[in-house]
């Protein structure tokens, strides 16, 4: 029995990562953010960002591994060197840029309101009525919304969720009146659930890859890689495969 205990303990401490022989960069993804990053039906990380980064890694000659990380903890994970970069639909904001270094923007998204398919709500009503709006916690759009709401005196209350699909789920069940999120996951939801996109809000957001500030070499590789990717026919292929369904 005692031997078993020691075996268990030994296993855990040995399992800690060993020194890097051949450096594999770890990309932290928000696996609850289709179509940019998600886990496919075989349990493999997949999505626009995953495919794009894989292509860049191959082109630029480095190795990359994608690991799902909790969105709330993704920047602490980067700073604590548990992951090396975040290529997962992260919006470039001034606040985040104080902690991490961003690549050049590689994609732009709008923010949209989503309502039930049969909802009679209009955009103006959303701002004027005491409704409940569901959003993903810790996102740039949730922060924008909270700030703008105070400034403009909008009547709705914001309800925060772990991920946008959970907000969609609550919307379908009628617990909230509106869900607000980036366009691509909204489009994904529109295809899978009885909901519709009502209109846009906020500012156009730019996605960038985040790395630790001292990792300028990696950042240069990523910037160069995205430039190459955008000039390659594979870029259009990726967009067609993931974003224009």
């Amino acid at each position, binding site marked *: 029995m005692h031997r078993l205990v020691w075996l268990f303990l030994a296993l855990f401490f040995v399992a800690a990562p060993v020194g890097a022989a051949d450096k594999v960069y770890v990309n932290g993804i928000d696996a609850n953010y289709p179509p940019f990053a998600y*886990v496919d039906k075989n349990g493999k990380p997949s999505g626009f960002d995953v495919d794009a980064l894989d292509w860049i890694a191959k082109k630029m000659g480095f190795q990359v591994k994608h690991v799902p990380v909790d969105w709330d903890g993704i920047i602490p994970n980067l700073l604590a060197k548990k992951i090396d970069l975040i290529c997962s639909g992260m919006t470039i904001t001034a606040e985040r840029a104080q902690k991490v270094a961003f690549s050049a923007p590689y994609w732009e998204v709008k923010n949209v309101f989503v309502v039930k398919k049969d909802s009679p709500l209009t955009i103006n009503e959303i701002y004027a009525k005491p409704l409940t709006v569901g959003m993903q916690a810790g996102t740039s759009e949730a922060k924008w919304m909270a700030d703008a709401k105070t400034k403009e005196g909008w009547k709705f209350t914001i309800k925060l969720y772990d991920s946008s699909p959970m907000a969609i789920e609550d919307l379908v069940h009628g617990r909230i009146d509106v869900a607000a999120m980036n366009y691509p996951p909204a489009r994904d939801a529109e295809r899978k659930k009885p909901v519709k996109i009502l209109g846009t809000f906020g500012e156009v957001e730019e996605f960038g890859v985040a790395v630790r500030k001292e990792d300028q070499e990696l950042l240069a590789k990523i910037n160069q890689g995205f430039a190459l990717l955008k000039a390659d026919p594979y870029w259009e292929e990726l967009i067609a495969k993931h974003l224009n369904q």
Partner: protein
Amino acid sequence: MQEILTVLWEAAPFILEGAGITVVAVVGAMFLGLGIGVPLAVAQTYGTGSVRRMADLYVWFFRGIPILVLLFLFYFGLFAWIGLNLSAMTATVLVLGMTSGAYQSQIVRGAILALPQGQFKAALALGMSRAQAVWSIILPQALRLSIPGWSNEYSILLKDSALAFVLGTSEIMARTHFVATRTYQHLPLYLLAAAMYFGLTWAGVGVLRLVERRVRIKGYGETA
């Protein structure tokens, strides 16, 4: 219906893999907690002065802070600060284990206090040292009495382990969430996760009951 079954069928191996991770985390934390909890309980019951105060402080600290906060505090704070490069899994086991140690100490302490007080004194009167008395008279009885309390602790720990995803340990809940996000089949998938937790609780409690029966001393306690 067909679609739901397909989703469940495809998701099952992926989520089951998460169940394996959950089991390793929980079993590891249980053993670590046992290693911490028993000395703590002894220190709290028989310790004097600073030893006892240290044990009290430990229990007070780990029981007073939510596990989610402890996970953050240790993984991103303390462990990183002292330069300890632990994998998410190791950190999960350590934090869950240290927390469980505080709770397990109270299970064992309760068991020690449940024993007739005269036994310890009698052992000393027979010439045993305090350590000897605790080791050969008190603990063998107290640990046996603690087993029902452990099955409780196991089932609590099992459910607490779902918090480990903040560190990136993809256990049952995190994986279920990933699949639900992609397929929008939240209800059937969470039912599947619930069934897995149910199975794990049932199996764990069953194992502990088996242990309880195996280590029972014939005739002991039957007339008490």
